[in-house]
């Protein structure tokens, strides 16, 4: 199974936009996304231990809900850059089914071409992806019970 291209429109937009930018501009682009995400309300009650991702140098929270059989994610962080990165991840991969999310790999993270910014961020984004995949599986299990 492959993911239908129309389900990855936002991801493709990020890939194209980042592809046109040099490294310094990419850095600023992510900050801009982080700042824009800051203006979208994130439920304060979800900024808790249960929604927190561990192992980050900043705090990252991801909330999840369902729309049909697609998983929707929203992310938050106390650092602007990380907020930008988590927004890119949740924006790129919301709406996918559990199976489609399961198909995403490190190649999709690499596709954003952020590796040159620093390895740390690529590793962090892979951790975000794995967290989203885990949330989708937990959600499916809860629904099945």
């Amino acid at each position: 199974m492959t993911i239908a291209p129309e389900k990855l429109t936002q991801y493709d937009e990020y890939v194209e936009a980042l592809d046109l930018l040099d490294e310094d501009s990419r850095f600023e682009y992510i900050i801009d996304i982080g700042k824009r995400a800051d203006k979208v309300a994130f439920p304060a009650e979800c900024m808790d231990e249960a929604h927190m991702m561990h192992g980050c140098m900043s705090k990252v929270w991801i909330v999840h809900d369902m729309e049909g059989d697609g998983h929707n994610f929203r992310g938050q962080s106390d650092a602007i850059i990380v907020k930008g990165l988590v927004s890119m991840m949740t924006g790129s991969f919301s709406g996918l089914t559990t199976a489609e999310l399961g198909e995403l790999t490190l190649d999709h993270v690499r596709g954003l071409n952020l590796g040159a910014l620093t390895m740390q961020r690529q590793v962090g984004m892979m951790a975000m992806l794995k967290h989203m995949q885990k949330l989708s599986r937990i959600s499916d299990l809860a629904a099945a019970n």
Partner: protein
Amino acid sequence: MNDMNQSANLAGHNVEGAFDVARIRQDFPILGRQIHGKPLVYFDSGASAQKPRAVIDAMTAVLENEYTNVHRGAHYLSQTLTDRYEGVRGTIARFLNAPSEEQIIITRNTTEAINLVAATYGRRFLNKGDGVLISDMEHHANIVPWQLLRDEIGIELKIAPIDDRGVLDLDAYAALLDGNTKLVAMTHCSNVLGTHVPAKEIIGLAHERGIPVLLDGSQSVVHSRIDVQDLDVDFFVFTGHKLYGPTAIGVLYGKAELLAKMPPYQGGGDMIASVTYEKTTYEEPPYRFEAGTPPIVEAIGLGAAIDYVTAIGMDKIMAHEKALLAYATEQLAALGDIRLFGTAPEKAAILSFVQEGIHPFDTAATLDRAGVAVRVGQHCAEPLMARLGVDGTVRASLAMYNTTAEIDVMIEALERARTLFG
């Protein structure tokens, strides 16, 4: 990098002939690198320092021409390398002014050295209910080994408080020595705040009560002159890689009478006198505590690092770093939006800070874009972060090869962070 070298000399902190930072920089090949198209400004030496050519060459020479295993080899290579390896023990002993090289135990790092003391001295001489006194500014390496011992035999972990400047509260420390305290284990210089603790007073107060003292010298060995006899310290530990040497080698110095009473740490080759299935007898210190093939090449590297530092002169390094610290502190304060943690009168060139209203990660990421390497987070000192009331800080830890021009690069990048995130 030439501009940086020139500026450093023009800054007036170095008297001609006394300390030539431009020449020293040439000894560290990595300092010629560019990061994100900009000259590397390495302010993460507190985590691990860069290596001078002397260390790299010494290790390469061993690997290329002299390598074999040490001890008991009946051939030329083994005997010559054993002499060199054991010679490093003497180099370390002289560096610390230890009475004897037999009091120098080679470990993997500071963490292993502290675990060794906890597992041997701790298990043999501490009992349920005995107190181990540490400070409120310890690295996890000097917290967790004692917690493991607490879980195993029921010791009590006691914490000596610090004030808001990061200065140890000596009155509270003295009061905590009374009662059940049987061992003091304390940082000699905080990896987060840079605070130098008044070691002689700490040790004197403990010894008045018959309590031995372990000092964690991971940072102090880089930024100050160590004399274990003058300190009268019972155990002193440090790691090689922060002292411009390689990773995977550390040192435990111990008083001879204590080491003699301590049981082995790990079992294996090299640490035994004889082995039968019925009974094994152990070597005398230091070998009793060094099971298995030691870090031979790393030891040669550490010896070269100590020779390098000694040749430059610790007093000159300290003077240079003191000038850098004063300049960096002044420049950070001038920004007006910096909260600096650690303002003890006696401190090393370690600057932990946050930019008001900006997450430390965002600050550090902006510094990285400018080629400035700093550490961000909790610096393996979560309890200290809780004491300071922050989730984390940015830490710029300076070394002998840094310059005032590099500090200017950091300040400029901090101004950019204010523009980007303010």
